[in-house]
Every structure is written in C-alpha cells, then in structure tokens.
C-alpha cells in the first residue's frame, strides 16, 4: 500500500456515463479484486473515492467508473498528463491462488470491471474461466475479456443483445469448482443462494461508502457471520456464506 501521485495516460468515455481512466502504475501492488482510493482535488472534496482495479498491466493501472456524483465528475474531467493521487492497492481480493479447475465469474453492471483483472490472473494461474456478464442495455468492455477466458456469456435486461433477462439465469453453478461474483447486492445474493444450493464455493465483492479506505475509521463495517468486518480491509471480497446466511 502506497500513497502517490500518478500521471494520467488516458481517460476515455466508454459508453454513456462510464469512463476508463488509465494511469501510470509506478510499481504499485495490484491484485484481482483489490481497489484504490483516488482523488484529483485538494480539499474541494473531503473524501477520496474507492475504485476497483479494472486492469493492472506492467506499467499502467486501469479504472472503470460511472459518473455519479461530484468526485467521479471531477475524475471524468482528467486529461492526459494530469496528476491523480492514488492510495493502494487496498483490501483483500479474490483468492486466485487457492483456485483450480473451472471457475465462473459473474458480474453485473459496474461489477464487471474487477472481474477482468480476475479473469486474467485466474487464467495465468492455470484455471479455466467462464465469464457471465450482465448489462442493462449497452454492452461494454467485452473485448477485454477475450483471450483471458474460455467462454463469455452475455445478457441484457432489455434484450438488446445476448440473452434477454438476468445473467444469473444462465449460470449453472454445479458446472464449476467456484464462482466469483461482483455487482448489485441483490444479484450477488441470488448467486450465493444458487451456489449454496449446489454446494459450490462462492465469493462476493461488496461495495460500501468509505472514508479512510485502509481499515482505520470503521466507516464501511458490515455485519458478517464472523462478526463485524471492514469492507475496505477485510474485504471487499468475502466468502458468500459469511455475508448471506
């Protein structure tokens, strides 16, 4: 974990209000499922913004984010060569090294980007990866998953492309040794229940408002089967059964 300023390499609008920010990595640690706190302001805004790692390449880090509030709006204004402050990598990500065999990754909406780095690391680890991506309407980032997974399944809620319906309809957990999921909580609950039903291990990545990002302020604590846990430090990735009983 480090706190450093980094140069923006690119900041592109992917679709609608979704952007991808690419910055210099500067030897920072970065593992699948971890995140960074970002800011490109001094004191105009009080808090940094937690953003998951979309892709960690040798020299660069990629962050995908949706413009929702003041912070992400400022991030979206970043231009090539601008400086952005990064704190990270933070948190506990997916258990890549424990995996073997066949693993499914299921993401919904802005839960999709962290699964890209996860697919890469799992594939590099020798695991066969199938990816299930659920979109509202417009597909994005599909090409990023090509080459680092065996199969890609796509759904849109409005039926524009791929399967018409929820991505969870396509998943058969019993085909896998484990399932990693990230996205809306209601979706992850469904995945967790499906996995529990078939006795398949499942990990979920939680989202929460954060202040410090490093485990000190307890602003993102959640109740789990193992007691109170900090999403920023003990998570964001948790075993499903500790989250949803």
């Amino acid at each position: 974990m480090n706190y450093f300023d980094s140069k923006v390499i690119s900041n592109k609008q992917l679709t609608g209000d979704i952007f991808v920010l690419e910055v210099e990595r500067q030897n920072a640690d970065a593992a699948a499922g971890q995140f960074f706190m970002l800011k490109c302001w001094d004191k105009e805004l009080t808090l940094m913004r937690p953003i998951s790692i979309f892709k960690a390449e040798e020299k660069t880090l990629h962050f995908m984010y949706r413009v929702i509030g003041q912070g992400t709006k400022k991030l979206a204004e970043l231009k090539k060569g601008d400086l952005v402050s990064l704190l990270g990598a933070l948190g506990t990500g997916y258990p890549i090294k424990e995996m073997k065999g066949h693993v499914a990754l299921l993401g919904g909406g802005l839960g999709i980007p962290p699964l890209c780095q996860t697919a890469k690391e799992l594939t590099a680890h020798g695991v066969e990866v199938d990816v299930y991506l659920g979109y509202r309407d417009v597909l994005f980032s599909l090409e990023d998953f090509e080459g680092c997974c065996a199969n890609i399944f796509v759904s849109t809620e409005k039926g524009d492309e791929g399967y018409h319906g929820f991505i969870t309809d396509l998943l058969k957990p019993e085909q896998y040794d484990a399932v990693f999921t990230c996205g809306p909580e209601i979706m992850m609950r469904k995945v967790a229940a499906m996995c529990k039903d078939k006795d398949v291990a499942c990990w979920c990545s939680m989202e929460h408002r954060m202040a410090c990002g490093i485990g000190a302020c307890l602003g993102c604590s959640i109740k789990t089967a193992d007691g109170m846990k900090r999403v920023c430090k003990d998570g964001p990735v948790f075993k499903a059964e500790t989250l949803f009983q």
Partner: protein
Amino acid sequence: MNLQTTICDIKFKNPIIAASGTFGFGEEYNELYDVSCLGGISSKGLTLKPKDGNEGIRVYETPSGMMNSVGLQNPGIEAFIEHGIANMRRFNNVLIANMGGHSMEDYTTGAAMLSAADIDMLELNISCPNVKSGGMAFGIKADVAKEVVSAVRKVCTKPLIVKLSPNAENIVDMALACEEAGADALSLVNTFQAMAIDLHKRKPVFNNVYAGLSGAAIKPIALRMVHSVCKQVKVPVIGIGGISSATDVLEFVMAGASAVQIGTVNFNDPLAGKHIVDELESLCQKEGIESLEEIRGII
C-alpha cells in the same frame, strides 16, 4: 524552534494528536508513515463491552466536510488492554485512551480499568452523538456532565481529558462544570449533530436519522468555541474541529489551545499527520515563532 507542548505534565513532541475515531489504534496509518512523528494518538472510542456499532450508511460526504454515524464500534476495554495498548506502545508518542459510555457505571468501571493500564491519559467522551440512550445525553447538560466527570475523577488515576460536544446547551458553562468536577484538561469539539436526506429514497441517509458533522465546515465554529472556553477555564484545552493545515493549528493555539487533534483531514490526505507536523515546523520558522508559548492565547 520548539514545537513541544505539555499537558498535565505529559510532554508531547508536537501539538498534533490523531483524533479518536479517525485513526483506529494507529496501526493502519503506520503502514503509510511512521506515526511516531505525531505528538500523540487518541484511540478509537472504547466502551466497557465490545460494540458492533450502527447499521447502514456510516460515512457521508458533505460540502467541506463529512458526516459519520459509526456508533462506537470497538473491541471493548478489556481487549484494548490485552492487545491494543501494546500495539500503540510501539509508537513513540503520547497514548490517549478515548472512552465512551452508556451509563454512569460504564464510565466509572471503564475508567478504573483503563487507569490501571499502561496509558498516558484518559479522554472521556461525553459527547458521542451517534449512540442512542447515552453518550450524547451526558454532553448536553452541564449538571449531568458534572456528575459523570466527578464520578470518573474519583476512580481515574491518570490525567483526565474531558471531550466536549458542541451540542452542549452552553459550551462555556459545560467547560466550567467539567473543570470544577476535576477534569485535568478539555478537548473540544466533537462532531456537530447534523442530518442528511436522500431525496430519491425519501429517507434519511443515516439509520439513526442524525449523525455527526466534522471537517473544514465546522472549523470556524470550533475555533470560536475553543476561544471562548480558553478565556474562562484554567485547565489546558485541546482544540478539535476541521483542522487541516499548519495554519489552522496556529490559529487554534492563538485562540488558546495547548494542542490540537486532527481527524477528518486524515481521509482527505492519508499522510496529513506527517504533512501537518512538517508544515508546522516550516510555518513557525517563516512566521518567526520560536515556541508555541509565544502565541498561545494571544487573541
């Protein structure tokens, strides 16, 4: 130049103290920088029994500040004495145990336990706005505060700091009551009780409806309160409230504070503690200030 400050015979290498609730027990920030550079650390607010804290949203950004409703999540005083203190002792600075409570018995039992442990000072939180039935109640009315401080004073053998709420009916009366009841020092202010509403959900943001406001937004009010209290009490005062630069620190010292606590700024700049200590040194040099005593309370 001398940044040292002394409160109740306890020497601080500089007047910068990490504020309770923003800094855990120092461990996490110590991974980013050597937190021994701070004058002291006030621990996460401790209660007699471990507490899970509040459910729902706990932190929420506001213009020039933030609100929190953590609800005193902590491992309990016993666990702190068993593990927490040894961890904090790795840092070469003043160890302040911050303690909250729900009842008079909580406060006195906890204070007795902590007094017997290896801490430098006890900071009594009579002002947490985020805990139902207790905490805040003690911080509003001066006569109630006086009662709890007197009771704690009887069992507390360590220097006793009482942390005041800006939500007190009258902050000066509150300060005088706590001083009279035996507080060795006062720290002020805790967060301001505040509110946020989620328009889309048609609901309050926080499950507890009200939460505590901190950060730069409260600094001018905190400064006024520290100033007016310092004019009236004899005990040393630790200034708290939106301090985010060395300039802010010197303003609080000029208003009469012996030291300050920094909280919310740690979230804006994870290295804030180190940055403010370094900045304070260069600012004093620039301003020709040899020691903090020169400017303390000159306003």
